[in-house]
Every structure is written in structure tokens, then in C-alpha cells.
């Protein structure tokens, strides 16, 4: 089973390709899947309404009454039972809701997602989704307290299942051997050290000691601060670094300039050491 997670990143799962590279995939959050489901239900209900209106307008036409009824019955059946299955059998292995949330269905063993697995995971929606829905609609009626309680317990077991296992599987995932992963479309962001004028670096000559203060973890924090370009965060971080490395601020030095220069220098230093097999994890790492 390819599911050893490092304690630091509970969402990351190993997916080793036949070429031997671990892709380090990420599990989708329950909230993301919830929103994706809402979007899909919205689309289903919308199509049903459109179908009903379409069928009704045919119905008024007179002769095609039976055709309209057949279309509606089949349409309802197909939407209810095969909306999820048809989309998840496609190339993207995701319903429109999942696509919008950047998720996809993947076989837990990393192999190709087969039709039977998709059918199995969606057949269980009958229990997990439609039964609770029908139950909710009916519970306003004549059912007595005990029936309602039993129904709530029953539905609760299925609806809350993803919260109670490590891999956030719902009953359908369990049965089908699938899980839902993040599959975001990442754009390649520009490298922060691109096109730095050599003169700019000449102004910032850091000593080896100043560069050995921090490790990879701090470098990545610095990277995210620089990418977000938040004024207050940059000021705070720049001040902290100056104090820590004992840097005296010159007159025309801006925080952003200082941070980019320090980032570039620190990355160069750490990457050089990386080539010699030394990865300084963070500032506490003595290597």
C-alpha cells in the first residue's frame, strides 16, 4: 500500500511511478469535496428543472405526451444514477464540481481507474446521499421519534465516515479502492532570482556566517513572503533577519530589495551545499 505519510504533512501520500519517482500526491480536504458535491447537486437539480420544463412544453404540444414522459423518466434515472459515473469515467476522472475544485478520483493502488471502480464508488451514493436526502424530506411527515433517531444515526455513519479515517474515504471509496486527490493546475511561477542586476548584488555582500544562520525551511518561508508581496509581512521579516544576522541598514535600502538579495544569496549558498549532499533543514540544523 502506497500510503506512508510523514508526520509533518498528514495530507501527503506516496505515489511511486513505475519509473521510481514518488509524486507525493495530496489528499483532498473534506471541505473541498463537500463544495464539489454541492456544485454537482446544483448542476443535477438545474438540469432536472430544465428537463421538466422541456418535457412540460412538449407535453402541452399534445401528441408527444408519451415521448415527454419517457424523456423525463429516463432523464431523471440517468442523472440520478449515472451523472457521477459518466464524468468520472472520462479523461479527467472528475465531475464538473471536482474539476472546479481541482480534484480527481484516483485508484488507491495508483493503477488506471477502471469503470467498475467508478460504478462501485457511485452506487454507494444511494446509501450515503440519496437515502439521507429522502429521509430528510420525509422526516417532516408522520414518522415517530424513534424512526427519526434511527435514521439520523444511520445517515450519520455514512455521511461522517470521511472524518473518521486517515485517508478520508467515504463508503464508496472504501468499496471501490479509490480516493480523491488534489490535482490542481499549477502555473509555473517566475524564479525569484531571475534577472537580478549584478550591481544590486554587489551592494549586498553577505558573509558566510550571515548566510549560515538559516536553513531550507526559512528559505521557503522567505520565498512565500516575497511571492505574496505583503508590505507588513516584508517589513517584519526584514527587520527580524537584520537583527538575527547583524546587518546594518544603509540609507537607500528598501525591505523588498534587502529580502530579495538575501534570498538569492541564501539560496545560492544552500544549493551549493546541497550539491555536496548537505541539506541544512532549518536554522537549528548544525550540518
Amino acid at each position, binding site marked *: 500500500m502506497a500510503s506512508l505519510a510523514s508526520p509533518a504533512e498528514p495530507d501527503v501520500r506516496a*505515489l511511486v*511511478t513505475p*519509473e521510481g*519517482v514518488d*509524486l*507525493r500526491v495530496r489528499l483532498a480536504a473534506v471541505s473541498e469535496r463537500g463544495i464539489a458535491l454541492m456544485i454537482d447537486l446544483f448542476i443535477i437539480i438545474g438540469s432536472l428543472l430544465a428537463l421538466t420544463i422541456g418535457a412540460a412544453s412538449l407535453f402541452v404540444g399534445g401528441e408527444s405526451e*408519451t*415521448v415527454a*414522459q*419517457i424523456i423525463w*423518466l*429516463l432523464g*431523471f*434515472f440517468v442523472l440520478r*444514477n449515472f451523472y457521477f459515473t459518466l464524468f468520472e469515467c472520462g479523461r*479527467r*476522472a472528475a465531475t464538473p464540481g471536482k474539476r472546479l475544485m481541482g480534484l*480527481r478520483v*484516483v485508484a488507491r493502488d*495508483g*493503477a*488506471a*481507474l*477502471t*469503470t*467498475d*471502480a467508478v*460504478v*462501485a464508488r457511485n*452506487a*454507494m451514493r*444511494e*446509501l450515503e446521499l440519496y437515502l439521507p436526502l429522502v429521509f430528510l424530506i420525509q422526516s417532516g411527515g408522520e414518522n415517530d421519534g424513534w424512526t427519526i433517531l434511527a435514521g439520523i444515526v444511520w445517515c450519520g455513519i455514512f455521511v461522517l465516515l470521511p472524518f473518521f479515517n486517515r485517508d478520508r474515504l467515504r*463508503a464508496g471509496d*472504501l*468499496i*471501490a*479502492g479509490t480516493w480523491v486527490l488534489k*490535482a490542481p*493546475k*499549477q*502555473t*509555473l*511561477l517566475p*524564479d525569484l*532570482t*531571475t534577472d537580478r542586476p*549584478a550591481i544590486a*548584488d554587489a551592494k549586498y555582500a553577505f558573509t558566510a556566517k550571515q548566510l549560515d544562520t538559516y536553513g*531550507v525551511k526559512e*528559505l*521557503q518561508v522567505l*520565498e512565500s513572503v516575497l*511571492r505574496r508581496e505583503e508590505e507588513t509581512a516584508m517589513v517584519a521579516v526584514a527587520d527580524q533577519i537584520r537583527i538575527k544576522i547583524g546587518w546594518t541598514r544603509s540609507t537607500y535600502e528598501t525591505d523588498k530589495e534587502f529580502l530579495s538579495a538575501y534570498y*538569492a544569496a541564501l*539560496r*545560492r549558498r*544552500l*544549493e551549493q551545499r546541497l*550539491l555536496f549532499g548537505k541539506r541544512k533543514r532549518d536554522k537549528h540544523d548544525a550540518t
Partner: protein
Amino acid sequence: MDQTLRSLRFRKEREESWRRLETLLDRAERHAPKSLTDDEMLAIPQLYRSALSSLSVARATSLDQALIDYLEALSARAYFFVYGARATLLERLQSFFARDWPHAVKQLWRETIVSALLLFAGTLMAFLLVSADPDWYASFVSAEMASGRDPNATTEFLRSTIYDDGDADGLGVFATSLFTHNAQIALFAFALGFAFCAPTALLLVYNGCSLGAMFAVFASRGLGVEFAGWIFIHGVTELLAVILAGAAGLRIGWSIAFPGGLTRIAAAERAGRQGATVMMGVVVMLFIAGLLEGFARQLIVSDVIRFGVAAATAVGWSMYFYRGDRSGIAR
């Protein structure tokens, strides 16, 4: 001395091939893969492997987190494309009907027997109870479903329900609603198997009960044979489909309760996939049953032909599912 970082030089050298992979994947995913030329299709696995090696190099030498995130996402996307399902819909359908479906049904033979026994036990029980005391009828068949066909009905009325050809215009709607209703129940029975068999078994017994109860009423008026013809013209297909759906559900419940040598999850997974294959077929069967019930039964009123159709479907299905091993079935 070149001031550019080594990792940045690496990125500049490889960037173009990553972008090319990205565009090809975009196109393949958005439109059908057919929109790519042969050369482009062949390029994807190559670019995928080079992206993977870039990822390995980047992890070992670059500390640009954004770059590593990008390569991880790109490689995963390409991985799912390269190693994902390749078969077209037509190929999938072919292998489903030629191999997967009968094979899965055959593997469920034990559960199929149990499921059939449960259905017949329900039928027999309700038949005996209603024969002994007609008051039982109401507890097996709801008034809505009976629609007048109860122990108090006249023999003429009961006879008319068997041979009345109904409203010919409504047949299509009737067939469709029968199909969707039955398929929904079958899918439900399958899903219920997850809860350790019990609900599936109950549903099977209950289905048998309503059949047995109605049979008792018709048999008490000497209409047993006619009723059998009326039921079995589509019932062979429909009951077999219900039995198979029940069997698939039972297999899931049984594998979770008694996983044998496998882990519980692995056993559930295997049973779930097997059951799902059977269930796709069950929906097809119920579609056929709906057509037989909606059209054939209403248009054919001869008992002999009705039994003939019933026998033909029985032989047809058992030949299809249980005839000897086909060559090429993976073991």
C-alpha cells in the same frame, strides 16, 4: 563568472519541454485525445519521463519551492494520462459484454444461489400464509401495488388483469417507468449489501413475499398457470436481475464480515469492483425486462407464447452466463 544560479540555469534549459507537455495535456484533456497528431501522442510519454527526471533533479538540487510544486503537479497530471485507462468507450463495452460481465456473474455463483433461495423462501412463505389465511395478503402487498388484485376481487377481474392489453399508447411510458423503478431498487439492494448483508437479504425476501402472495390469490381461483405466464414472460429476466443484484450485495457484506486471507479493506474492494460489474449488467437486464413487461406482455396474450418467451430468456441468460470457459479470460 556567470552569476546565474545553477538551479535557474537548469530551469531555463528544461522549461520549454515542460510547457510543451502542459499544452499537449491541456489539449488532450479538453478535447478528445484524437485531436492530437500521432507525433504529439508519442511525444507525451517522452515529455512525461523528462518531466519526471526534471522533478528528481529539482528535488535534489533546487530550493525553489514553486518550481518543485509545479513539477509535481505536472508530473502527476501526465502520469494519470500516460498510465490511465486507454480504452475507448466502444472497446470498454465490447470487453464488458464479451468477458467481464459473464465472468463476474460466474464468480458470484455461491451468492447467486443464496440470493435465489432467499427470494424463493419469501415466495413460498407468503404463498403458504396467504393460502391458509387471506388476511395475510395486505401485509405483503400494498394496496397501491395490488390495485384491486386482492383476495376479495372477482375471478373475472383477476383474469382481466392478466389478459388486458392495456392502453397501447401508454406502453412506452409504462415500460420506462418499470425499468427505472426496478433498476433503482436493484441498485439500492446492491448498495445495502455494505451493511453486512442483512438489508439486502430482507429486501430479497420481501420481494419474494409480494410475488408469493399474489400467486396465492390467483392460484386460489384456478388462474395459477395463467398468472405464471403473465409473470414469467418478463419475470425470468427481472427476477434473475434482482437475484444477481442481491448476490452482488451479499458478496460485499460477506467479504467485509469474513475477509478470509485478505485485509478487510482489500476484500471489500475486490467484492465492490466485482459487484459493480454485475450491477452494470443488471441495469441492462432490467432494461430488457422493462421492454418485455411493458410491450411484449401487453401485446402477447397467448399463454403458450408467453411461456415460450419465458423459456427462451431462461435458456438465453443461462447460456450466456454459465456456458463453458471462454478463451482468453484472464485468471
